[in-house]
């Protein structure tokens, strides 16, 4: 009798054999993919649940914040005066000029530094730059996206300059001192070249998933700062009284 494959035995164990093959096939082909799919689904569900919790908290916060909308608007107005949304150059320049005059300083020149250059081709060629050299050539002041840098040329005493700077520091438009250089003209009279920066704050950029980003909390420290910003310590430095100039006529042929 052959000692090789015994078909009798195979025939006897057909059912267990097929079952074993089925189980061995089902585990990697069906069960494992199902398990990994369940793990992935659970992860997504957990993420979505976390996002939902964050959204629900934000909705509650927004709802309670909206009940104090007037208060929020008034706080925003206070902050806006200190750090406006736009450059608002005209009232700023006129306001600062007025403060200098009020502090017995002569204003010789106010010069706005150039803003951001849109393209490289718009940059002036080096040889085309004015050859006039000043002591400020080494100063690296540029108006950035959220900073209006301007230069003032003033004349007066150091005491006047000090009180002028004091008013600017507590001005209800934030002005950052950048640099000044002074040279004596006569006894107690100096020619002062001062660089100031007026920051402004465009609308905040939104996050990738802004809708689920938690609402920022206005902390006690922020409230305290707001109270100080609204107090008499800060004085208005910008002016809104700007002469609009001649407006022309509707029909230039008939006159005014």
């Amino acid at each position, binding site marked *: 009798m052959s000692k090789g494959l015994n078909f009798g035995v195979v025939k006897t164990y057909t059912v267990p054999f097929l079952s074993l093959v089925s189980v061995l096939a089902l585990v990697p082909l069906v069960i494992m993919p199902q398990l990994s799919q369940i793990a992935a689904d659970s992860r997504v569900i957990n993420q979505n649940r976390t996002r939902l919790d964050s959204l629900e908290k934000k909705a509650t916060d927004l709802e309670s914040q909206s009940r104090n909308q007037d208060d929020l608007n008034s706080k925003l107005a206070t902050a806006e005066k200190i750090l406006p949304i736009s450059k608002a150059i005209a009232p700023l320049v006129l306001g600062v000029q007025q403060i200098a005059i009020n502090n017995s300083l002569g204003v010789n020149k106010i010069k706005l530094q150039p803003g951001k250059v849109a393209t490289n081709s718009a940059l002036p060629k080096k040889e085309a730059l004015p050859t006039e050299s000043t002591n400020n050539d080494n100063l690296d002041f540029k108006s950035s996206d959220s900073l209006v840098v301007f230069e003032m040329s003033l004349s007066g005493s150091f005491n006047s300059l000090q009180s002028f700077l004091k008013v600017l520091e507590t001005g209800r438009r934030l002005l950052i001192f950048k640099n000044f250089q002074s040279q004596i003209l006569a006894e107690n009279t100096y020619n002062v070249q001062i660089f100031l920066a007026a920051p402004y704050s465009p609308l905040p950029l939104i996050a990738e998933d802004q809708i689920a980003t938690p609402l920022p909390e*206005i902390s006690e420290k922020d409230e305290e700062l707001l109270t100080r910003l609204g107090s008499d310590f800060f004085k208005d430095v910008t002016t809104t009284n700007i002469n609009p100039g001649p407006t022309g006529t509707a029909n230039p042929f008939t006159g005014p």
Partner: protein
Amino acid sequence: METGINLIPELTEKEIKSGVYRRKANLAAIGALASVGLIILLLIAYRGYLFIQARGIENRTSEVEKIVVSFREVEISTLTLKEKLTQIDKLLKESLPASEAVGEVIGAAGTSTPIAIKNLNISDTGEILVEGAAVTSEVFAEWVDKLTSGRGAQVFSKINLVSLVKNESGFGFSIRADFTKRGVLPSL
């Protein structure tokens, strides 16, 4: 005499054992297969449960998103306010109090015979360059003393004498120093 006929086929012990094993093996195999099937069914059912749960979260999220969007003006105002306050706080705390720097230099120059300040440069990093003239070396020493001791020591650091030249009217000097104070808001 009666004789019995054995109609049952004679089975060897081996054959009996083999039958029992086969039955048991078949049962075990079917049981294993059924268990695997049951596990698969349970997994499918659990996936169904997860699907329903995900759908529920999705629906609720969509509802809450609508609520959040309806308050967009409040959100923009709050965001803007927070960002402005953060920037204002930073700028007020970090900027150089130039008026104080000028005041301190002028104050220190108030020596017995006042120092004549000819040039004064101050940068936002706090670096101060003073060029001036003192009538005598004693007055110059008094000026240096005022910068380096008492109030001066609190607000000035890294005081360096850049140049000192004797001329007909006294001593011409140039001094570089760092003004260390930052922040324009008085502390509460």
